[in-house]
Every structure is written in structure tokens, then in C-alpha cells.
């Protein structure tokens, strides 16, 4: 599975574990990197010193490359951006905005910058700003999403830019990875399946809920607020969507989701928490180590890609 992305990042397989808030901490990131992929530490809205600690702990567990995902709307974004340089992190992915103002600082430090984009316009803008690669994430993904599906978005982004494109959203097995390659991607980013790995430190309930999920179990809240989020359906999503249909305002809606992700991921509150996961949760049925997952993904993809010679 050697591609421009694996060589750009100095990793064995171009498989990135998404920098999910509250989920992507150093145990998970280090395990993914050790297994040959690229682990990411999700900075989310955590204070900068937490991110620094996570980076240092990850380095104790792996000497392979790993990265940090910076959430640009975090009040600590400026400090996190600096810590990424100070702690010698070699890869950064970005979400929730445009990382233009940090680009010069990061590029001067030799860091590979990979913004996550949900539109062609943003992809072009990021390439222009100096991004090394892009993650084109479709709305099948869990968490904050855009409008387009992976199937529609990825090839259009691939057509629009020269830099390598990494596909994300709706991928959890070799078929998804092979499909991403067919769409023109040179790598994949995955979230949902990594949540149920052994090294992922989240609450049991959250892992169980993903394993039990069916294909149609996810809901998108916040379409009316301009901040759509995909999560598995529960009392909270039902109430939220009902309120949205009645025209509720942002403040009222926010009451339902404030602290919701933490409640779900850390405390295991499946009823009122934000149980973020992608549409592909229905396919995720088995727990395993990161090593076993990556080996499974690679052998499935190999079989498909190499088996294509017989096409007529």
C-alpha cells in the first residue's frame, strides 16, 4: 500500500486514525503509529498543556511518526499551534476552519500540514496556502460534517488540486479503502472503527453502542445552526431534531449538547450524550487491537486491488 501519502508522512500504510475529540489520546495514537499507520492526538478544546503532555507520553510509546489534530475554533488554538512546533510534532491535521495564519510557522519548522476540507473551494484555498496534502471528508463521517458525501467529494477535490488527497467518511474495511483509491485518493482517514480498538480508552458503553449500531442508526443534528454533527440516535438527538423542526434558536439547542460528547465518551451516557460515530458504524462489529485492525485492512485492500486484473 505504498502511495504518495505513505512516503510523504514516512509511514508504512497510508491509514490515518482521525483526531477525534475526547477519543484520540496518546494510547490510541501511539498504537496506530506502531502498527504502521499514522496516529493523531485530538487537541479539540483541551488546554495546550494537556496536548503537550499527550505528545510526550506518545513519544514514550512509539518512535514512529504521529500527529496532532488541531481544532481551529478552540480558545487554545494559538498555543496548541506553538506547542506542535515546540514538541517537534511532524504532522498536523486541522479542522473547523482555515489554518492559514499558522502555515508559515509550521512550514518553517518542517511540519507536514494536512487540512481537513469539505468542499472544493476550501481544498483549493488550502493548496494555495501551502498545505502538503488534504483530507477530503464526506458527510458519512461522525462528528462535524459538511454537505457532500465521500463518493461525490473525493474525486472532485482530486480533480481540483495537485497535492495528495486522503479520503475520509464511511470507511471501515478494505472495500472502503480500495474504493477511496478508485476515487483518486492516496490514503484514508478513519474514525469510527478505531474507537472500538483495544487501545482506545473510551467508556465501554460507547464501544458497545458502536458495535450494536445498525446502518441507519445515525442522525444529523444542527443542520439549522450551520454546524451539522452526526451522532448515533438517542433521546438527545430525537429531542434536538424535534426542537429544530419547531424553529428553536441556537441557545436553546445548545443546552442539549453542551458537554454532550464528554458525557458519552468518558462517562458512558448513551441516552443524553453526543454519541458521535459515522454511518459505517453498522459495519463495525468486532473489537481488536490496532495492530490486528490495520493488518486486516491492509490484507483486505491488497486482495481487492491485486485481484482486479481479471476485469473485462
Amino acid at each position: 500500500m505504498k502511495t504518495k501519502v505513505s512516503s510523504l508522512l514516512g509511514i508504512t500504510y497510508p491509514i490515518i486514525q482521525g483526531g477525534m475529540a475526547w477519543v484520540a489520546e496518546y494510547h490510541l495514537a501511539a498504537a496506530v503509529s506502531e502498527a504502521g499507520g499514522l496516529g493523531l492526538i485530538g487537541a479539540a478544546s483541551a488546554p495546550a498543556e494537556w496536548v503537550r503532555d499527550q505528545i510526550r507520553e506518545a513519544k514514550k510509546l512509539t518512535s514512529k511518526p504521529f500527529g496532532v489534530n488541531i481544532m481551529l475554533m478552540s480558545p487554545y488554538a494559538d498555543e496548541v499551534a506553538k506547542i506542535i512546533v515546540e514538541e517537534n510534532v511532524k504532522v498536523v491535521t486541522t479542522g473547523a476552519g482555515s489554518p492559514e495564519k499558522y502555515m508559515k510557522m509550521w512550514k518553517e519548522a518542517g511540519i507536514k500540514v494536512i487540512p481537513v476540507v469539505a468542499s472544493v473551494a476550501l481544498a483549493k484555498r488550502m493548496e494555495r496556502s501551502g498545505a502538503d496534502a488534504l483530507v477530503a471528508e464526506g458527510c458519512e463521517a461522525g462528528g462535524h460534517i459538511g454537505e457532500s458525501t465521500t463518493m461525490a467529494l473525493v474525486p472532485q477535490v482530486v480533480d481540483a488540486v495537485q497535492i495528495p488527497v486522503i479520503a475520509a467518511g464511511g470507511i471501515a474495511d478494505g472495500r472502503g479503502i480500495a474504493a477511496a483509491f478508485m476515487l483518486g485518493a492516496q490514503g484514508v482517514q478513519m474514525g469510527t472503527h478505531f474507537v472500538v480498538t483495544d487501545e482506545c480508552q473510551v467508556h465501554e458503553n460507547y464501544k458497545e453502542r458502536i458495535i450494536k449500531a445498525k446502518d441507519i442508526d445515525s442522525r444529523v443534528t444542527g443542520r439549522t445552526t450551520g454546524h451539522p454533527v452526526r451522532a448515533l440516535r438517542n433521546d438527545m438527538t430525537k429531542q434536538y431534531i424535534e426542537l429544530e423542526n419547531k424553529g428553536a434558536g441556537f441557545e436553546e439547542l445548545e443546552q442539549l449538547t453542551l458537554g454532550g460528547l464528554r458525557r458519552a465518551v468518558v462517562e458512558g451516557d448513551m441516552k443524553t450524550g453526543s454519541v458521535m460515530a459515522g454511518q459505517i458504524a453498522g459495519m463495525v462489529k468486532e473489537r481488536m487491537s490496532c495492530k490486528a485492525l490495520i493488518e486486516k485492512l491492509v490484507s483486505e485492500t491488497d486482495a481487492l486491488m491485486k485481484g482486479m486484473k481479471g476485469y473485462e
Partner: protein
Amino acid sequence: MLEKLKTLISENLEINTDNVTESSSFKEDLGIDSLDLFELVMAMEEEFDIEIPSDDLENMSTVGDVIEYIESHK
């Protein structure tokens, strides 16, 4: 300038711009989300041959803000 901007907005975002004035806000009056805003910004950059860094974008919430910016950077 306002007319040019209105044309760009209606062409790129398929929005009716009859009632758009300099005080129209992107989020509240035009209902534009962040992805749409980037579409618009790319179109404006091409039309007026300027670059608008995202830091400057953060301070633009109305059509008037954009007009002011473009005029001072032409």
C-alpha cells in the same frame, strides 16, 4: 461595487439578492454558512484580483464590510 457583489452572491450561491444592502449580514440575513462563505471569498478574490487572508475574513460580517475591504485593497 454593491451591484457587482450582489451578482457574485446570486451567481455563486443561488440566492435572490433583490433585498441585499450594505448592512445585510452574511449569517443572519443571507443565511450563509462557513462553507458558502469560502465559496464567495474565492469568487471575490478572482473577480477583484486580490487575496483575502482568513484573519481578515473573521472581521467581515456584512456585505458593507466586504465592500470596504475590497476598496481599500484594490
